[in-house]
């Protein structure tokens, strides 16, 4: 070995050890949100770069996320400093594994959200971090087929069906798009939109006569829906490719379309049914696992995430809206402007019927979703009788509610114990 190569070796060795030390001091932010590569990159460069002590932002699929977290909790030590996940992810966890954040000093300006974040305990299990919702979006070419007299900002389900039918007649293709793919959020449509709009409930009214009507209407809408919808999970893709012209999805799963071709698409509120315009929020939170290696740094990072500037930077990066009171700037990305306006119209509508997130289901949240997905697959894809399927699935739903003892949440009427399926 020559002197020179020895020297370079030594230098790179020192450099490596420096890097290792620097990496140690970073707080690991383990998240299920902002996963798409562009969003993750924006989180790192625009949101977290302002945090003095350095953050290692690692977004993951739900599977690795929960596996790694559980492993650290079981082993009793870990490297994860801060968690970022949805309300539903936290409610499935054992409250003892999350650090009490009640006295952190930072919290959402919404009491509803703060209460949800207690997960049925009297402590803040996570801090609300950002919010979103589900809306409708359409290709502007579809606007010409709107049924007569229909206002796109105040559509009814019947008008939506007529619209989708018009488009199909004119183009020869079914161009309503629905995220029924494996990763699609179809269950949220049933829980937060279809059921509240037709039955003014979710659990109590699961197998009611109104629910039968709701499924009949949905079947009608499905007949004008792109049959490849069972492959669709991110409706921005089908908007951009033109495979679907009118779609329903999570605001951040539509963002790509608006940011790429802002002039081609419009966003608008979800339709209304006999019992109002049902819609539901998406709530993500930040939390600290009991095994966090540096508790102070983790708490500092959680507080940092709630700062108004961080919240606006997060909005730009992920299309998720702030949960604290902030003045929104004018130069927001097109997706944020479009989604923000549509959500505002939806919640401000005279017939608005806002729902809450399922609460108290614990680790049965997945089973609860499966009830709705199975009902959909059996009625719509399997062509089974609606009444029969509802009566059959009703038992499963009632079992989940009894086992968890979860009380009713809006729009269901409040219950004394476990929410009954009537």
């Amino acid at each position, binding site marked *: 070995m020559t002197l020179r190569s020895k020297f370079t070796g030594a230098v790179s060795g020192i450099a490596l050890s420096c890097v290792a030390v620097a990496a140690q001091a970073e707080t690991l932010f383990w998240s299920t949100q902002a996963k798409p590569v562009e969003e993750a990159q924006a989180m790192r460069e625009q949101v977290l770069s302002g945090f003095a002590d350095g953050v290692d932002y690692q977004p993951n699929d*739900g*599977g690795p996320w*929960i596996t790694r977290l559980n492993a650290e909790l079981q082993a009793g030590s870990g490297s994860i400093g801060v968690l970022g996940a949805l309300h539903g992810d936290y409610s*499935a966890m054992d409250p003892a594994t999350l650090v009490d954040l009640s006295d952190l000093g930072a919290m959402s300006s919404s009491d509803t959200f703060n209460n949800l974040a207690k997960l049925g305990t009297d402590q803040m299990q996570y801090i609300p971090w950002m919010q979103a919702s589900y809306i409708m979006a359409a290709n502007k070419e579809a606007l010409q087929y709107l049924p007569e007299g229909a206002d796109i900002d105040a559509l009814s389900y019947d008008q939506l069906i007529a619209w989708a039918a018009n488009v199909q007649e004119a183009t*020869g*293709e079914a161009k309503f798009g629905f995220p*029924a*793919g*494996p990763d699609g959020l179809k269950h949220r449509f049933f829980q937060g939109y279809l059921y509240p709009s037709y039955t003014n409930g979710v659990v109590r009214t699961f197998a009611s006569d109104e629910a039968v009507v709701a499924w009949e209407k949905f079947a009608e809408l499905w007949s004008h829906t*792109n*049959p*490849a919808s*069972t*492959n*669709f999970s991110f409706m921005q893709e089908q908007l951009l*490719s*033109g*495979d679907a012209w009118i779609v329903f999805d999570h605001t951040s799963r539509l963002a790509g379309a608006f940011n790429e071709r802002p002039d081609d698409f419009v966003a608008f509120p979800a339709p209304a049914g006999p019992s109002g315009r049902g819609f539901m929020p998406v709530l993500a939170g930040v939390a600290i696992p009991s095994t966090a290696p540096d508790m102070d740094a983790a708490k500092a990072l959680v507080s940092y995430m709630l700062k108004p500037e961080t919240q606006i930077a997060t909005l730009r990066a992920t299309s998720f809206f702030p949960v604290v009171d902030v003045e929104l700037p004018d130069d927001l990305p097109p997706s944020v402007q479009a989604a923000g306006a549509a959500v505002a119209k939806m919640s401000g509508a005279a017939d608005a019927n806002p729902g809450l997130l399922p609460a108290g289901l614990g*680790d049965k949240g*997945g*089973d609860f*979703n*499966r009830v709705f997905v*199975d009902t959909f*697959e*059996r009625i719509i*894809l399997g062509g089974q009788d609606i009444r029969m399927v509802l009566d059959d699935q009703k038992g499963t739903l009632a079992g989940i509610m009894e086992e968890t003892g979860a009380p009713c949440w809006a729009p269901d009427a409040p219950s004394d114990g476990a929410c009954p399926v009537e």
Partner: protein
Amino acid sequence: MLLNARILPYVLILPVTLFLCLFFIYPFVLVSQQAFGSSEGGWSLDNFREVVDYWKFPISLKNTLLLAAAVVPIQLALALLMATMVSKMEKGRDMVLYIWTIPLGISDLAAGIIWLAIFEQSGFLNSMLNGMGVIDKPVNFLTYQNPWIVFVAIALAEIWRATAIMLVILVAGIGLIPKEYYEAADVFGASKWKQFTRITFPMLRPSLQTALVLRVILAFEIFAVVAALGGTLFPVLMGETYAYQFDLLNSGAAAAMALIILAISIGFTLIILRILRVPKGASI
């Protein structure tokens, strides 16, 4: 020298055994305990009952078996054909073999992305048909009205992706067959087909056995390609297992599903080993 022939095999398999005990058997036992556990504690078959009673179980079982039954024989035939074709090649053998083994390097997730780009409504297949004037507007292939097209698409993608595994094993096996056998066969005027059935096939039996067993086991674990192309239309056992583990957070049920897949895999493995028994020292 032959004295240690009694101990030698155990010495040789010791490293693997130790390694697998630590990194496979230990976690495997922990997971299996969950499968046979129940909420009240103690042993029970509750988890198995739960997963088998679920309405999608028979469908996903049928789909998985059907897919394996359709894909594996085609892959075997194709891999055998390719391997014999290469063995006769004088020029460009390196290049052709390299091209044929390319899919080895492609993960199932990536393969799913690629084949979805071909079959989706605004995909390459529609573009091609459109360009040739066969259709005037894109056809929707992957829909619930066309379960057979979905099936064929998944099967094609799997054949494309995973034939190379068998090919490499078979090519390495064919390389071991002494050339003299063929030269002798030529002298006696045996046809190419006869050479294949009388020399190649029997001599290749150990490799065939390995290739088939590995391929069949992997076929029961198929998931990513199916999810990409079949969406929710084509449930398979492995997809249901992951749903229990990660969507429903029900590890006991997921472990039960995994053990069912394991049992099926073992069953088919034993059948293959029996059919393709290697005369000396390889029976199970």
